[in-house]
């Protein structure tokens, strides 16, 4: 994979022209699978497309180049009383990457996904044409590019809404639940009244699937010291790969047991900084070493509302039966706001993410079984985190794929797209 890194917006077109094989735009490479890779072709890094164009405090609209990271935005705007409308679980992603995967976060039920906060962007096609895209201007390209996996052109800049905050803290509540019935109850009662919700599930404890439901709101608590309003640099480093015994079934069970039982009370209230609340893993450099030398695999699905309980129960049963214990399991209910993109991942219903230590073939066939459950219920797998789903699974779950392929730029491609049947 060659790497192109144009120094400014005007140099992107010539950079694509200068090479013969296919090109894929690249942000910070925080996607887990091969959707940000382009074997035998080029990656076009947006690292020098890092300029802010303007901010309107009246509307909260921020306009910036696509290589600007969420980390930079927070550093600059949190001290001024603004936050992202939508943020994924890491701040080390670019605006371009946030659009191309139409990322979602803990606020999905109240804000929708990143595309919902987006007003417009400019797209450069490999033939040199540039299109401003919004819901009114070139709406077809707009819908294809949001969640479009970088295949429709290079996003040069984008304009999207920030939201006002009172301060950098989150008033948060952690509530224990003992089975998925209780989870759905908590989720329902939290839709209104809590901006952010997410749950951690201990799915190895038995068929019940107990866990901790976290919900929070921006706190009115102020931070008088301006330098401490935005987050600081990552401090802790995972210095070595975790040894295999830490990743075995019993250790994972013990870890989850402790996590559940260390919280003594049913409800625990606290007021914490946004950094550990939204970005717990960003605080540890090289956190992926936790998963040992072979790394790990993430599997994330979304399942429509109808049948969500049944599907979740079946998946969790499968997980308890399987030997590949997931280290970390997160569960969240998506809201009803329709996503903007033809291939946007979020749908009204639930999303479940499982992190597995990578055990190779055995894990793959196990995940194929989970895929089948997801397919039976009309759900889908998140391309941003996928390295293995079968082509049939992809085309069956994203019904707009035909329509989408008409917008794909002939010079752009990715390992992911070719793997699931595209060009």
């Amino acid at each position, binding site marked *: 994979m060659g790497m*192109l*890194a*144009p*120094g*400014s*917006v*005007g140099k992107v077109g010539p950079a694509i022209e200068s090479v013969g094989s296919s090109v894929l735009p690249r942000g910070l490479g925080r996607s887990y699978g091969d959707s940000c890779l382009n074997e035998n072709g080029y990656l076009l890094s947006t690292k*020098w497309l890092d*300029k*802010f*164009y*303007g*901010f309107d405090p009246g509307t909260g609209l921020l306009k910036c*180049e696509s290589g600007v990271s969420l980390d930079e935005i927070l550093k*600059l705007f949190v001290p001024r009383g603004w936050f992202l409308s939508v943020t994924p679980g890491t701040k080390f992603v670019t605006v371009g990457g946030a659009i191309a995967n139409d990322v979602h976060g803990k606020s999905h039920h109240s804000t929708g996904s990143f595309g919902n906060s987006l007003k417009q962007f400019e797209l450069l096609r490999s033939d040199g044409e540039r299109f401003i895209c919004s819901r009114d201007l070139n709406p077809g390209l707009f819908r294809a590019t949001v969640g479009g996996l970088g295949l429709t052109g290079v996003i040069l800049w984008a304009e999207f809404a920030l939201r006002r905050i009172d301060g950098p803290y989150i008033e948060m509540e952690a509530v224990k639940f003992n089975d998925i019935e209780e989870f759905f109850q908590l989720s329902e009662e939290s839709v209104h009244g809590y901006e952010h919700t997410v749950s951690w599930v201990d799915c190895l404890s038995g068929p019940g699937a107990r866990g901790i439901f976290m919900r929070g709101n921006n706190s009115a608590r102020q931070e008088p010291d301006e330098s401490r309003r935005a987050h600081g640099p990552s401090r802790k480093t995972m210095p070595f790969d975790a040894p295999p015994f830490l990743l075995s079934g019993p250790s994972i069970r013990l870890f989850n047991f402790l996590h559940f039982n260390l919280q003594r009370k049913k409800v625990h209230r606290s007021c914490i900084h946004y950094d550990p609340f939204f970005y717990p893993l960003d605080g540890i450099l090289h956190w992926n070493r936790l998963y040992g030398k072979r790394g790990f695999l993430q599997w994330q699905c979304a399942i429509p509302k109808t049948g969500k309980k049944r599907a979740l129960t079946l998946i969790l049963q499968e997980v308890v039966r399987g030997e590949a214990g997931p280290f970390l399991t997160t569960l969240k209910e998506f809201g009803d706001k329709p996503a903007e993109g033809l291939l946007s991942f979020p749908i009204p219903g639930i999303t479940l993410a499982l992190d597995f230590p990578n055990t190779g073939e055995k894990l793959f066939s196990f995940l194929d079984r989970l895929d089948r459950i997801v397919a039976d219920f009309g759900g889908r797998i998140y391309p941003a985190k996928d390295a293995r789903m079968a082509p049939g699974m992809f085309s069956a779950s994203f019904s707009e794929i035909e329509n989408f392929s008409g917008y794909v730029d002939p010079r752009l491609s990715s390992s992911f797209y070719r793997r699931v049947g595209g060009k």
Partner: protein
Amino acid sequence: MARPAKILVFGATSAIAFGTAKLFARDGASLYLCARDEEDLKALSADLTVRGAKEVGYSVFNALDKGSIIRAVDDCLKKFPELDGLLIAYGTLPDQGLCETDIEEMRRAVEINFTSPAIILTYIAGHFEKKKQGVIAVISSVAGDRGRQSNYVYGAAKGALTTFLSGLRQRLGKSGVNVITVKPGFVDTPMTAGFKKGLLFVGPDVIAKGIYRAVKTGKSIAYVPWFWRIIMMIIRNIPEKIFIKIKL
């Protein structure tokens, strides 16, 4: 040392210059940007304004066009008669192989990296001398510390620039103006896009912080990161007899 409040930047699109301008913008300084491309200049002006710069102006210029340099300086001084800071950051890393056979390529490399900054400095020195305060920072390179077969044309131009700055520092020091020679090592910027990034590479923001600190502390020669001072001391002290036999 007082921080400059109005700063002229030649080569504003360079990644190192942009990193440095961001730090001064955060302090609320005013900036006047010069670069080759107007679209880039607009983007940069908007960015630095968002980051807190008080006022931003710009001019298009090309290092190979003396007229455009004079015009840019004049326009800047019209807008900011109180100018008290100057950063010269542009440069090119020529293809050494080509420079060994192509006289024009060699001449261009010297003109961009040495002659044109010397023109800017010659034209603007009087302003600082009269003002009797301010700071001038110019990006040279560790490559100017000793000629090496792998890049001696670039190195010679930067070496000449370092020598020029040393003399200018003596002259302007008498008027209370500090001249800073910035000597970066390997920096990950568009200039080094084709290089394999080894352990010695740092990001442009590291150099930017080094320049910012040098300005504030009144330093005059800044190796960034600092360890390049030691590396270059060793390289400078290798006896010529041995030096001609090794590859560097």
